[in-house]
């Protein structure tokens, strides 16, 4: 997109945004937990949907406040554990150097996205046993699937918070949640990146941000400032593998938070994380299709790294800086060349991460939040020796602003404007770089 064109589109969106801000009316809605406990969304969310300390503790404790009003009997009779979350958006996207029959082209288009819906069902079944079920989809393709479904047993040993067990399909405890990003038009590169083989494929589709089926063992201290999570799961979309016990993958995360009574920094966090996602590379087949459970010769996609968070200013309206670094590796047996059979020359390795800033201005009623993120991936060892050293390197930035019109004890509705850009080295026409620019305006509401 040229500079003039970008400016023109941006101005159109700016006018549209102003009109929406001025004429929009408050919505009434009932997010389940806000209704149950009569707390506003802001109690748990630093900026929707990123959790703050209170929200993280509430989640870790199995959606319980533990003051005698949690379970199905003692909770307010008006509480029903269902909420909907929908984000209608308009998005304009332009991608450069695309291969077409008419030669290399830059293709741009804009539309109201074919939005899906999350049906969020979550709550406490009985003391210290909670659940979450999230059917998602409902878009024009008619598909619906369970994005999450799990039961969570807290305080498994007496009154200790150091052992809680989650069973089912769930998001692993990531440095920054892949399901709760502030940005709507892109996601963390670090989580989904795989080294590229020109014309080839990858048997590992592991994405840290995707929910995984398995067990999570999670523990924390009383104030939730020291946390650990250990996951045993069957990697998402693992061909030929059926469950966590036949092709186990492992994830671990440890975090330590620090608080400062005085001074410009109110809170800081450091953490380490790592995952080994195992994918089978040999299968018994039926009609050429892998037979579930028959996979063997497991090969690993590994990721490990460190993280640091700093909250500058008061935690209630902070400038929150988040830095995550990771190293990744996919075994060469997972990386197939263009014939679909021959493995790559060597394992693909890379380094990546992101730096994210979230600012909640200390303005009355905390309506605003601004955010920006820079994602980067740099390949270390290309799977193919002949590939350029920087092939498939990625850079991505995102800037956005959210104005939360209403965050009552019944609903949340926010206007969301965002610009982003992603650049990938060498994947475009004739080895050119490919860049995707995006402008997005949406209404994010939960009912």
């Amino acid at each position, binding site marked *: 997109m040229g500079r003039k064109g970008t400016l023109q589109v941006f101005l159109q969106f700016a006018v549209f945004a102003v009109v929406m801000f001025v004429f929009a009316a408050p919505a009434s809605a009932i997010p389940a937990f806000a209704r149950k406990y009569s707390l*506003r969304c802001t109690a748990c969310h630093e900026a929707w949907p990123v959790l703050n*300390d209170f929200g*993280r503790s509430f989640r870790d404790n199995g959606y319980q406040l533990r*003051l005698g009003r949690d379970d199905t009997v003692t909770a307010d009779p008006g509480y029903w554990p269902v909420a909907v979350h929908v984000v209608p958006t308009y998005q304009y996207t332009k991608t450069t150097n695309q291969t077409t029959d008419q030669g290399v082209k830059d293709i741009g288009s804009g539309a109201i996205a074919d939005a899906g819906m999350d049906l969020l069902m979550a709550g406490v079944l009985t003391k210290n046993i909670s659940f979450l079920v999230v059917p998602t989809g409902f878009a024009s393709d008619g598909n619906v699937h369970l994005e999450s479904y799990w039961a969570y047993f807290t305080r498994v040993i007496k009154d200790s918070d150091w052992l809680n067990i989650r069973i089912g399909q769930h998001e692993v405890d990531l440095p920054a949640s892949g399901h709760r990003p502030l940005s709507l038009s892109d996601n963390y590169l670090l989580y989904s990146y795989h080294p590229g083989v020109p014309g080839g494929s990858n048997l590992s589709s592991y994405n840290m941000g995707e929910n995984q089926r398995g067990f999570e063992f999670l523990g924390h201290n009383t104030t939730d400032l020291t946390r650990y999570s250990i996951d045993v799961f069957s990697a998402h979309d693992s061909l030929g593998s059926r469950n966590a016990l036949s092709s186990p993958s492992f994830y671990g995360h440890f975090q330590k938070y620090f608080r400062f009574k*005085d*001074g410009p920094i109110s809170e800081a966090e450091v953490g380490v994380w790592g995952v080994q996602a195992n994918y089978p590379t040999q299968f018994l087949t039926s009609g050429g299709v892998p037979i579930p459970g028959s996979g063997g010769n497991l090969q690993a996609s590994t990721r490990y790294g460190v993280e640091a968070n700093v909250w500058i200013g008061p935690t209630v*309206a902070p400038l929150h800086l988040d830095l995550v670094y990771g190293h990744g590796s996919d075994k060469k047996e997972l990386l197939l060349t263009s014939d679909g059979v021959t493995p790559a020359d060597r394992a693909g390795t890379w380094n990546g991460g992101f730096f994210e800033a979230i600012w909640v201005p*200390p303005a009355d009623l*905390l309506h605003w939040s601004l955010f920006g993120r820079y994602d980067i991936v740099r390949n270390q060892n290309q799977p193919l020796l002949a590939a350029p050293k920087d092939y498939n390197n990625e850079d991505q930035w995102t800037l956005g602003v959210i104005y939360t019109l209403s965050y009552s*004890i019944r609903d949340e509705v926010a206007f969301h404007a965002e610009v982003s850009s992603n650049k990938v080295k060498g994947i475009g026409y004739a080895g050119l770089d490919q860049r995707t620019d995006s402008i997005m305006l949406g209404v994010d509401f939960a009912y």
Partner: protein
Amino acid sequence: MSIRITRFFPGIAGVLLVMGSAMAADTGDVKNGKLVYQRYCMSCHGDQGNGQGEAAEYMSIKPRDYRQGTYKWRSTPSGSLPLDSDLEHTLFNGLYGTYMPTWKVLDERSRRDVIAYVKTFSPRFATEKPQEVIVIPPDPGYSDASVTRGAAVYLKYNCAQCHGAGGQGDGPSAHELKDDWGNQLVPYDLTKGHVKCGDQSTDIYRVFMAGLSGTPMPAFSDSLSSADAWDLVHFIQSLSPGYAKNVAGTVANNPSGDKK
């Protein structure tokens, strides 16, 4: 390199110390406390601190109206303002059985700031000082004999009128009770194994002596001896296995601001 760090360390530490001192505050920051209040408290207690937030009308136990400066949980006598540490105690522990959760996961700075802001709702904090803290004598220890004596105290002070003979909150007056704002109240069910303002034996003792301001629960400090009060504590504790019984007794005076 280590020599250079050693040389510059005192200077760096000094700068940080000065920065920290400049930012330090013994009392909370009212301006920031307002934001804390808006984020966590306003939905129940209202933007004017009058207990009429958007959630209030749906609650069986109404949020506190801060404008009078009357607080249920205090370490000070009935009618007195609370100490900051009393408000911190409530924030840290919550009020069991109500909609007031524990805010112990909030950072200390936020709790300090919101306390400073909540105090601005009542002019009393600008003109009055809290009275002396109620002294709590040592717990002589939970025993069957003390429980038996406590049962007699329970009858003598007519506790059953509201709380019922079995302590289940179903006494003859149970349906006639209102708070200072005219809201219907239900006497607390003492058999739950938790007490609203804390489960320590000293917490229960303190309620007898300080009362729960704004509610029909009076203070008995003028008429109840400390020995009778401890017997009554032990009787209450006998109503549920959920209460922690202090069989050995204690010599500690549990002041306000205690954290569990």
